[in-house]
């Protein structure tokens, strides 16, 4: 019994990280979120879902409302294009961030006879009842980017950890400031679970450094324009020299903050330390100006990983209940700290010859969002 338990755990470890290793850009070890997760990862027997194919997969997307979500969708399409021999039909709906529309979308997908539902839930809680009903109807559910509350409402959840991303970037900020300084927090969209989870995790870290004073926390909606406008107002109020660091959960708004400092006449290495990955423009600003910087992408390649896992489910291959996809810690040269080392140094990661709008970590070779196109089943 015990032996079987450990065999199951070992299997979970192997299948839980293998796809992630294939997709990662630079750091190709086991995902830290898997290594450091104090909980066990269950392996789900999917033999009852096994079929011959080709399969019909329904994808209920929450939204394409920002650059990250657009790239994530491309990653999903890329994953489908890599499985053309297994996926006969791929039906997509987009809820535009509205959970009630997403519930209707899912009902419409079910009526079209899908074999599996892949879903990026608009909120972590509101989709629970409909996903539970979908599972009870015998249609397996794979959630990606956000999970829902009940374990029984999905087969597997594919993610890059929000909490790990936030704890690492917040720790880097606190240690860069030697545990003392006045900082601003720029989370994403108020009420969105990734933003709230990251903010809560970052605050947990900062609470362990009594010398760190959070002078303001402003939601930005992951918008560069909002990031710039909000930070310009804070600079006006506090004075640029009285702000020692800016923690942003993404470079989307982080880049706006850097531009606000530049607009206020603070240039180059005088710009206070910043965090925030995802956006190539943020990496470019950090590289050009040379201020202390740590960027961690919430890698959109989770989209392709989720499609691969979905095909596994439909082929009856056991899958982990939670699949962690790797992320990269990118730090400007000379700014590694006691706890946080770089997986990749900034000059080796930034794409100076690519557009600033590019979202990093897509896992798609030579990715260009403007010209991206792949062959899809229908």
């Amino acid at each position: 019994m015990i032996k079987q338990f450990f065999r199951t755990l070992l299997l979970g470890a192997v299948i839980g990280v293998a796809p992630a290793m294939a997709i990662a850009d630079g750091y190709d070890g086991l995902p830290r979120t898997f290594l450091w997760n104090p909980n066990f990862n269950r392996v789900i027997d999917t033999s009852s879902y096994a079929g011959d194919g080709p399969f019909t997969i329904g994808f209920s997307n929450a939204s394409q409302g920002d650059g990250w979500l657009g790239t994530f969708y491309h990653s999903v399409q890329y994953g489908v294009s890599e499985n053309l021999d297994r996926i006969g039909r791929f039906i997509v709906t987009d809820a535009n961030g509205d959970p009630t529309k997403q519930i209707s979308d899912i009902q419409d997908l079910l009526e079209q006879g899908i074999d599996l539902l892949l879903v990026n839930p608009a909120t972590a809680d509101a989709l629970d009842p409909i996903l539970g009903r979908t599972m009870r109807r015998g249609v397996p559910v794979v959630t990606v980017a956000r999970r829902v509350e009940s374990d029984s409402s999905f087969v597997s959840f594919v993610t890059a950890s929000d909490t790990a991303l936030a704890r690492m970037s917040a720790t880097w900020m606190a240690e860069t400031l030697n545990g003392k300084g006045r900082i601003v927090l720029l989370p994403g969209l108020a009420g969105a679970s990734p933003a709230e989870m990251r903010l809560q995790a970052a605050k947990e870290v900062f609470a362990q450094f009594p010398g760190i004073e959070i002078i303001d926390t402003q939601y930005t909606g992951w918008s560069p324009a909002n990031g710039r406008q909000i930070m310009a107002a804070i600079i006006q109020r506090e004075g640029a020299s009285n702000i020692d660091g800016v923690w942003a959960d993404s470079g989307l708004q982080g880049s706006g903050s850097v531009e606000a400092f530049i607009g206020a006449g603070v240039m180059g290495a005088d710009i206070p330390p910043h965090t925030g990955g995802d956006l190539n423009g943020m990496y470019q600003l950090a590289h050009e100006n040379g201020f202390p910087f740590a960027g961690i992408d919430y890698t959109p390649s989770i989209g392709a990983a989720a499609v691969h896992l979905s095909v596994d489910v439909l082929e009856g291959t056991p899958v982990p209940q939670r699949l962690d996809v790797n992320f990269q810690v990118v730090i400007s040269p000379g700014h590694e700290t006691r706890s946080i080392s770089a997986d990749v140094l900034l000059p080796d990661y930034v794409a100076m010859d690519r557009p600033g709008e590019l979202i990093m970590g897509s896992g798609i070779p030579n990715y260009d969002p403007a010209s991206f196109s792949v062959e899809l089943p229908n």
Partner: protein
Amino acid sequence: MTYSKSRYLVRRLQLDPSLIIVILLLSIVVISGFVLSDRFGTMRNFMNVLEQSSGLGFASIGQAMVVIVGGIDLSIGAVVTASTIFMAAVVDLHPGLMIPMIFGTLLFGAMIGFCNGYIAMKTGVHPLIVTLGTASILNGSVLIYTLQPTGGVPYWFEEFAYGRIWNVPISGLVMLSCFALIWLFLRYFQTGRAFYAVGGSPEAARLSGIQSNRVILLAYSASGFFAALAGVYFVSRTGVGDPRIGDPITLASITPVILGGLILGGGKGNILGVLLGVILISLLSNLLNYMNISTFVQWVIQGVIIIIAVSVYVHKGKKL
């Protein structure tokens, strides 16, 4: 149907071009659905659409009642949101209060609607401004209380949103009953007919002995009540109170009102047109999902349909 009855119906329809337009658009959507997808035209799908349209239907009834008296309610989405939070948060703490909280939530919505009407009436401020202010207060208060979905309801309460009686969705039946009751009220009750009189000309209504203020208060209270009913439906459908769930509802509730031929200045229009507008919007969204068409294209098509419908009404001399 006898000859005289059908002639009466045709005459009625000729008098109300808005109904003809919305029926025509509905027919186009349904025929396209049958042609383009073999799964669209199933009873099961139509019942799904009826279920999905309930939330929008409840909200649109309230909006229609306010529009008929010459007003507009921009707080409907905020009342929906506040109702979901109020209900889910209380029931989560006291699950035994589930049934009383359904009525409590409806009362809560009606009271907010009453306040909207009272403030607009007493201050003379345009209802657009008053309800916008109320929406801001409610949304702000909700976000102060919680930024994320919160609370919960017992599992059995999902049956209101997902349950079926003889394969007909319970929520759809409730929505159709509400439309039928309001249609009867507006058509056959003196107070109901006074809604049109007040919307057409408040001064003339007052001179003819109608207590316009009471009618306006009743319209806004009804709007709040139905917004809260939509909130109850969404709690049943999602199992939680959500601080952002009502965001798209306000504008969405106006679309079927316009499509159904109600005149935004008040005084004219048939509530059954609003029901057809609700079904048209829901069926259109359903069909476009079946055609695997992006949401952005869906917005474009929905916008085009609104403009076409309204253009026809204007052409018929009914300015909106």
